[in-house]
């Protein structure tokens, strides 16, 4: 897929041919109405991009750039930018300075023997050619088929749900979590949760479950007097008191010695 011809992207990019070969499409003229400048600036990716555009547009020889001409054209552009949108021009101003420097170095009298490497334009040309190659490579990447756009990948359904085990929690995890809560909640610094209180809380939950099943229960139905030992009965009683105190249940009694009924609030 390597040697296809390189398609054009939108204006103002142009066919990348040099040395006499004509481009196939002429870009629009240099003049840009001021209100369109922002849009126009978006068309360039930076000073190198703009320079390349100017070189191609005016059919300049990139290997023998007429520095005076290019610099003048470039400065015209940058002046437009500077007037309209100063903050955009920073990278471009740097390039202006570089172009002027190259131009002035070329005006200096040349030594009799000039090594080609000493051409002040060499570095600029190298950068331009390299940037142009990157630009073309980028266009090429954009044209390559892409998963999700031009390539549809199989992703049929696999029922893995049954295979997945839920996370395990150890007692240590739970204790760590509880400690964290207590540490953060400063108003609980003096809070106490003892084993006994936990039994009470467990009974509170149990009693609420029982009451959920039956709308109303007789007080004595909440106790298993035959099987539960005294401590458990006490805990159960405390749980009922705590539930009543927290307003989660209500206790009713019609008269003295009549049955006490318990129901959820």
């Amino acid at each position, binding site marked *: 897929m390597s040697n296809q011809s390189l398609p054009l992207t939108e204006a103002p990019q142009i066919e990348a041919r040099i040395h006499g070969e004509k481009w196939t499409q002429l870009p629009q003229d240099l003049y840009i109405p001021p209100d369109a400048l922002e849009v126009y600036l978006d068309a360039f990716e930076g000073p190198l991009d703009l320079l390349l555009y100017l070189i191609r547009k005016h059919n300049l020889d990139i290997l023998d750039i007429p520095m005076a001409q290019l610099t003048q054209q470039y400065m015209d552009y940058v002046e437009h930018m500077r007037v309209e949108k100063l903050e955009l021009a920073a990278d471009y101003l740097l390039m202006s300075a570089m172009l002027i420097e190259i131009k002035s170095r070329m005006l200096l009298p040349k030594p009799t023997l000039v090594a080609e490497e000493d051409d002040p334009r060499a570095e600029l040309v190298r950068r331009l050619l390299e940037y142009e190659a990157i630009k073309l490579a980028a266009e090429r990447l954009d044209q390559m088929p892409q998963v999700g756009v031009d390539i*549809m*990948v*199989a*992703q*049929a*359904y*696999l*029922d*893995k749900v*049954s*295979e*997945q*085990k*839920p*996370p*395990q*929690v*150890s*007692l*240590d*995890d*739970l*204790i760590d*979590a*509880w*400690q*964290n*809560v*207590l540490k*953060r*909640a400063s108003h*609980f610094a*003096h*809070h*106490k*949760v*003892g*084993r*006994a*209180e*936990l*039994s*009470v*809380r*467990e009974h*509170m*939950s149990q009693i*609420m*479950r029982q*009451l*959920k099943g039956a709308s109303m229960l007789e007080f004595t139905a909440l106790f298993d007097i035959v099987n539960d030992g005294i*401590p458990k009965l*006490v*805990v159960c009683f*405390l749980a009922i008191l*705590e539930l009543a105190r*927290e*307003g*989660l249940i209500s206790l009713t009694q019609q008269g003295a010695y009549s049955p006490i009924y318990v129901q*959820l609030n």
Partner: protein
Amino acid sequence: MENNQIAQMKAVLEAALLTSAMPLSLDDMSRLFPERIERATLRMLLDELTQDWQQRQPVSMRLVQVASGWRFQASEELVPFLARLSPDRPQRYSRALLETLAIIAYRQPVTRGDIEELRGVAVNPNTIRQLIERDWIDVVGQREVPGRPSLYATTKTFLDDLNLKSLADLPPFESFVQQPEFALGVAQPESQSTLPMDIQE
């Protein structure tokens, strides 16, 4: 329709169903073709596809209809093999979930508001849902305040899964208490235990 046209449509359907992340409805599938296509035609093509795949031995994938449409799924017999590809890396619950669970365990029955007050942050409804789905907590009632918020408590499954006989087996937190006294005045332990817990039988 000509045979090669049918074959082409089946290939399009097959590729669409195999590459779609979601089941495809008949409406979805009719959008695959530029020309109008009858639902009856689509159903016929789907039937044929289903049979084509069933006839292969052994069956690798099945075309099935689910609530939102049709999809290919791996044959159940192969799932044990495919499961080896993604060994369940031990998942972990978030800290938020563990803290919520701890609060429900130690302070039950509690409302979401209670949990939020203790943690100082809003409780993600997902957290509660996850715990309910795991059957570790359930709703035991509503508190009689405006909005009648649900009261959550831990379940027997929670105790079973954590290998506890009762909540009383959870370590007590005397170590956070400056003066070890017991609010409800029962079952004083003989000594102050420090963390990690001392679980007594």
